[in-house]
């Protein structure tokens, strides 16, 4: 709209059309020139993903030929990977892990984040700082006794050791939800309480509906983290192929089909795809959530 309106203001009506055309082009070139660094950056960032998808549809010979562009398009590669490995099963495991962990994280973290942001109690600060500390701690620090615990309970080889903790405590979800909840004015909750709601009802009826975008962002981060998780699955399901999620399967896929880089990249593209789709649909929540994790509150 503006590009159509502007030249009319800028150029007198008597000006010949040729000049007006050139002005338009100048403007476009100017835009490209001033944005070239930004455009170049975006392109460079996308190149690796583009190469993954291009290699995924090459023939296996061409994948070893250092050509960028596929000469023939083998879309059947994507079907072939499902024949080479039980990818559907791995996909199912990944879905199970990520979905249940996300549900668990929300169920346990929403009340905790509510208490941290909207209630006042002794040790509140300490609890918050412990949550931050737990968030920052490398998982390898606590892994020996935890593994020992799950072996004794007989749950290694299953996804239970990965999912169960989320139903109690997920530091990152608590932290992120607290940051979101802090932005919601207390007045609404006070009003609900004057109307006779107890804290629980105020949380369910007032806070949760108001914090929906924040809760959605937290759920997405939790889903993404578990979908991408490699260390946990390697530890607990490493020796039980049937329980492998995609992240673990993908790393072994290449070894199983030695030089077939086209198939390996097809499998890589398949595991990246859900993440890209999720991001395209929920870009704003991601960006907002990320900004909130920077030390702002």
């Amino acid at each position: 709209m503006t590009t159509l309106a502007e030249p009319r203001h800028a150029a007198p009506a008597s000006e010949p059309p040729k000049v007006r055309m050139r002005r338009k082009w100048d403007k476009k070139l100017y835009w490209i020139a001033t944005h070239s660094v930004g455009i170049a950056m975006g392109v460079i960032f996308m190149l690796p993903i583009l190469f993954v998808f291009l290699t995924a549809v090459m023939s296996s010979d061409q994948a070893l030929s250092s050509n960028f562009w596929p000469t023939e398009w083998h879309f059947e590669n994507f079907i072939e990977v499902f024949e080479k490995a039980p990818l559907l099963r791995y996909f199912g495991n990944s879905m199970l892990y990520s979905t249940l962990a996300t549900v668990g994280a929300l169920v346990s973290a929403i009340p905790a984040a509510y208490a941290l942001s909207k209630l006042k109690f002794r040790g509140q600060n300490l609890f918050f700082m412990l949550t931050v500390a737990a968030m920052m701690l490398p998982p390898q620090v606590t892994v020996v006794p935890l593994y020992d615990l799950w072996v004794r309970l007989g749950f290694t080889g299953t996804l239970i050791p990965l999912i169960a903790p989320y139903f109690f405590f997920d530091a990152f979800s608590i932290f992120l939800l607290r940051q979101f909840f802090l932005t919601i004015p207390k007045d609404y909750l006070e009003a609900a309480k004057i109307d006779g709601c107890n804290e629980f009802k105020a949380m369910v009826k007032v806070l949760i509906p108001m914090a929906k975008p924040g809760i959605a962002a937290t759920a997405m981060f939790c889903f993404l983290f578990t979908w991408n998780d490699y260390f946990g699955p390697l530890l607990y399901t490493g020796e039980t192929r049937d329980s492998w999620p995609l992240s673990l399967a993908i790393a072994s896929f290449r070894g199983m089909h030695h030089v077939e880089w086209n198939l390996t990249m097809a499998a890589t593209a398949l595991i990246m795809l859900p993440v890209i789709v999720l991001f395209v649909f929920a870009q704003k929540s991601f960006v907002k959530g990320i900004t909130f994790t920077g030390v702002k509150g």
Partner: protein
Amino acid sequence: MTSTLDSRAVASPSASTRTRKGNAARRRRTVFYFIAPAMLGFLIFFGYPLIATVYYSFTRYDLINAPEFIGFDNYVRMFTSEPLVGTAAYNTLWLVIVLTVCRVVFALGVASVISRLKSGVGLVRTLCYLPSLAPPAAATLAFVFLFNPEYGPVNAFLDFVGIDGGLWFNDPAMSKPALTLLVMWGSGELMIIILAALLDVPQEQYEAAELDGAGPVRRFWHVTLPSISPVLLFGVVNSIIFALQFFTQAIVAGSAAAGAADVAGNTKFIGAPQNSTLTYPVWLYVQGFRYFNMGYAAAMAVLLFVVSAGFTWILVRQLRKSQHQEEGG
């Protein structure tokens, strides 16, 4: 605000102290219900294992036989007689320094370029952020392919420009720099945090600095950097802790480049080439969960805890400071 006034009006002298005490007890019970699951989870999944790790670090334990107390032997062995833990510590230290500097400087650079764009900020931001969401195992495999010395596109491109591409993941001297490139490519999260901080810098300060005759460089040093320094500190500490727990990319890159048949199944290729990708957490994992030297792995975990707790403390202190500022005004 109105609500507090109302409740005070109702609870004026007529209300007895007993109901007030009852209210306090009820409030405490409510808080308890809200945080009980999280507290329990914290104790089981963080509190207990932290203490137990210290105990296990003084034992010899293989998961089958009962832990046998051996005093400081694990620590002594760690610091004196075992060469690979030194290699692993060196690799991680290398990553802590190089990876942190590269990641933060790169993210700051990209964020400043984006923040200057007049339009298209959303698009460029999206393109730069998307890679950071890629599953690390998949992204690592992609990079092992891209940087393949014979047929990878990166060396093909370098060849085209007339530069001799290296062996990358197959060269002990180049494997860690290649991993650093992979991490920089995926540093979109940090870029967004820094970008948000950059856009928050008050415009008047730039104008004032410009009136005083400050050029772009001085404006960056005297206006931009001081205002975003808390976020930069967050980025630095965050990156250090990220480097301290660097695992997936290292183990996948090492094994995949060496052509390991199955990352989960063998230890032969872990750390390849020549242990250059053997990071501290990877060696901890191998010791504990491949060799079943659980006590030794616990001792390694204690050292990792001490180091990362130090950096976490810096961040928590910073967080508390910014919180006080917010509450204070």
